[in-house]
């Protein structure tokens, strides 16, 4: 047998009372892509951080090329040849795309000064290789999260590494980008580079990886060749349930069909324009209806969501809610300051795409994060009622199965998926009439994803209108009653009922491109 690139021996790690990892062992061989899967909070990210020296194990040992190592930090690991893409996009938003790609290893001229011309040229080459279109001199923060994630991938892969670790690299990628990434991983494998691949998208496990290790509650519950397992079995092991049980109740997806007899109009956004990102987008949402927004990266879905919610200003256009929306056919919109606060007051909720910078408040507890938007309802004369808070928090922690040591735990310490659930809970506890979900299942494990999808269904059945954005076309297709296809900030097609399929969406995008030079 070849020597392992990385060998993890019975490592354990506790965080102030939470046992994140408990005697985990894992071998990673050159030339293999090794999947690491498990529920939210199972310990995947923690395991990676132990390997790269972000954290140090309490017990056990990490070997790199058969030598026991204890990296002082990611820097040492990187220098030794372990290149890592961490779970949350970890780049510097204020620096340029090229600057981010080459940070710490900028090309220099003879005087030791950085040559920006060369750097930009090389950056453009890298981007071209990964099919990313972006101006390399622009600040990275201006790009959508998906593009940012691709750039993080490109950065990690453009170093000379013997081991590449990817923590949910595809969580905000389009199928197109995922394909590209799969190709790259193939290439890496042929170069005898070892790849550790964390994902919640089980399809990718079967497409990309040769071996898979399943973590549950900080322990390895399965490890073996991908070929010898099935999707169903994997899900069952992850969740700790019977295969039969999973098969019966299903692990994914929405109930096939809604009662598409949509209720009355609850939201009407007309001709939202914000140059150059949005160009006259109109969206109607009815009670009990799930409206999907489909499009490629940067097509304006997030912009649409934010404009409707009042989070970004628009040049023109109007948003009307409830009775006003119904009464309004063509009427002049009322002039009103539209802001998230106003939107929330009028019954619109939104779960933003970028949970780190726009969503969670890391220093606050799970409880405080959940009740944040509902504060006005939970106070008497400005004072908070513990009882009502706890009741609310309790309900949603249970319902969404948020895994936290207690409602008092800081959100910062939760795993990525659980943070996402906290955000969902924050909006759900407002009992909104319309809910805008921008990538609601990003980074969420299969079990939880199914639950959230079921929840969306259930809420829609109870009369909630939903605007759903997801880079997983499957999710949009299965979940939506109506799909608006966006391209370059404009609606290029509307699909209803049985028309909705991945193919039709892709066609609409392509056709839209032809119509609009």
């Amino acid at each position: 047998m070849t020597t392992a690139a990385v060998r993890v021996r019975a490592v354990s790690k506790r965080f102030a009372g939470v046992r994140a990892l408990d005697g985990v062992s894992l071998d990673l061989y050159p030339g293999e892509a090794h999947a690491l899967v498990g529920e939210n909070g199972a310990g995947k990210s923690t395991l990676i951080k132990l390997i790269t020296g972000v954290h140090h194990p309490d017990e056990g040992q990490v070997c790199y090329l058969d030598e026991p190592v204890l990296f002082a930090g990611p820097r040492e690991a990187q220098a030794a040849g372990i290149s890592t893409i961490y779970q949350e996009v970890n780049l510097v938003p204020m620096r340029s795309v090229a600057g981010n790609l080459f940070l710490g290893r900028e090309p220099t001229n003879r005087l030791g000064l950085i040559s920006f011309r060369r750097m930009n040229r090389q950056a453009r080459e890298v981007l071209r290789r990964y099919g990313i279109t972006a101006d390399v001199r622009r600040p990275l923060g201006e790009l959508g999260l998906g593009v940012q994630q691709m750039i993080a991938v490109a950065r990690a892969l453009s170093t000379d590494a013997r081991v590449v670790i990817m923590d949910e690299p595809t969580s905000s990628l389009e199928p197109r980008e995922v394909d590209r990434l799969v190709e790259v991983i193939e290439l890496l494998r042929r170069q005898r580079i070892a790849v550790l691949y964390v994902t919640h998208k089980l399809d990718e496990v079967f497409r990309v990886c040769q071996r898979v290790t399943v973590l549950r509650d900080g322990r390895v519950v399965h490890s073996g060749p991908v070929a010898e397992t099935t999707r169903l079995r994997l899900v069952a092991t992850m969740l700790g349930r019977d295969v039969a049980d999973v098969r019966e109740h299903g692990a994914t997806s929405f109930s096939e069909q809604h009662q598409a007899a949509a209720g009355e109009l609850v939201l009407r956004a007309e001709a939202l324009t914000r140059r150059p990102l949005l160009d006259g987008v109109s969206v109607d949402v009815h009670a009990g209806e799930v409206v999907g927004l489909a499009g490629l990266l940067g097509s304006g879905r997030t912009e649409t969501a934010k404009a409707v919610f009042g989070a970004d200003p628009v040049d023109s256009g109007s948003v009307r809610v409830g009775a006003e929306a119904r009464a309004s056919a063509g009427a002049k919109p009322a002039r009103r300051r539209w802001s998230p606060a106003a939107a929330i007051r009028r019954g619109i909720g939104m779960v933003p795409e970028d949970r780190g910078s726009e969503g969670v408040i890391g220093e606050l507890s799970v409880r405080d994060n959940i009740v944040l938007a509902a504060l006005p309802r939970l106070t008497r004369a400005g004072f908070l009622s513990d009882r009502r808070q706890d009741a609310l928090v309790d309900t949603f922690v249970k319902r969404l199965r948020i895994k936290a040591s207690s409602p008092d735990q800081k959100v910062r310490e939760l795993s990525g998926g659980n943070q996402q659930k906290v955000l969902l809970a924050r909006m759900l506890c407002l009992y909104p009439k319309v809910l805008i979900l921008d990538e609601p299942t990003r980074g969420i494990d299969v079990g939880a994803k199914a639950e959230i999808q079921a929840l969306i269904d259930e809420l829609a059945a109870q009369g909630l209108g939903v605007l759903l954005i997801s880079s997983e076309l499957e999710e949009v297709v299965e979940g939506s009653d109506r799909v608006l296809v966006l391209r370059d900030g404009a609606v290029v097609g509307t699909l209803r009922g049985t028309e909705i399929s991945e193919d039709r969406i892709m066609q609409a995008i392509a056709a839209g491109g032809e119509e609009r030079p």
Partner: protein
Amino acid sequence: MTLQAVRPRDTTKLPQRIQAAGVYIAIAALLVFNLAFTPHFATVTNLRLQLVQVVPVAIVAVGMALVIATEGIDLSVGSTMALAAALIPLYIGYGVWPAIVVALAAGLAMGLASGWLVAFAGMQPIIATLGLLVAGRGLALVLADGRLVELFDPTLGALGNSAVLGVPVSVLIVIGVAVVAGVAMRRTAFGRRVLAIGGNRSAATLAGLPVKRTLVTVYAVSGLLAAVAGVLSTARQGASDPSFVGLLIELSAITAVVVGGTPLSGGRVRIVGTLMGALLMQLITATIIQHNLPDSTARMVQAAIIVAAVYVQRGRSAA
């Protein structure tokens, strides 16, 4: 399903408590040192003196703690004190209370001004309040024509020097302010908003919180409290001294807040810790003076203790 059933009990709190106790440890150490080595330290008079002297810094620091919790900073507090002090003699002809009301109103106005600059004009807090620091003190001096004015008002004197059941009135005011601030931060929606804004302003906005209004309120409270401190200082001194009252108090207050365990990065606040931070600074000064250390040594010792106290409770950002 048992996703959250069998988690080990959360013991997070204990080490954090020990870490957060840096300021308490330092206070205890200084007390022990003084009890052992400083003659006449363990007297009621002396202890009361330390409490009375810490009043202005403590009050200002409570307001500062709220501002810092929003990830802001208020450098204008010292000038606000001066403005309040300068106004008292101008209006004391109408009676003490009207004069005090005018002084407090001026503090509120300063706070509203910095709040507006920060929340609505989008200025960085340190610059907005630096401008007001310079202009505010200038304004106070213009109003007072740069002069110290002695005040012989019995009510004002009582505010500064009398005691209820042995506890000085000004100390009672500090306790009152701290209790209100503590309750507001822990038990009210306002407190929650303050922390949310400090923790992640974009997220707070997207959660529909009235961010600007809250920010303005916080700076207004800070201004008002600074004015209270200005009035109390004036009362105790029996003189309005706009040139020097509150000079550099912003640095002492910020130190007290941070030494008390409130991080400058916002999102967290410790009111009692802030009071303890102020008390620690006072004890350091007292120890230095009572042991007659030269000025140069005094500054260096002070620096060392501040770093040590914060060092003990640092490090949760590490990871």
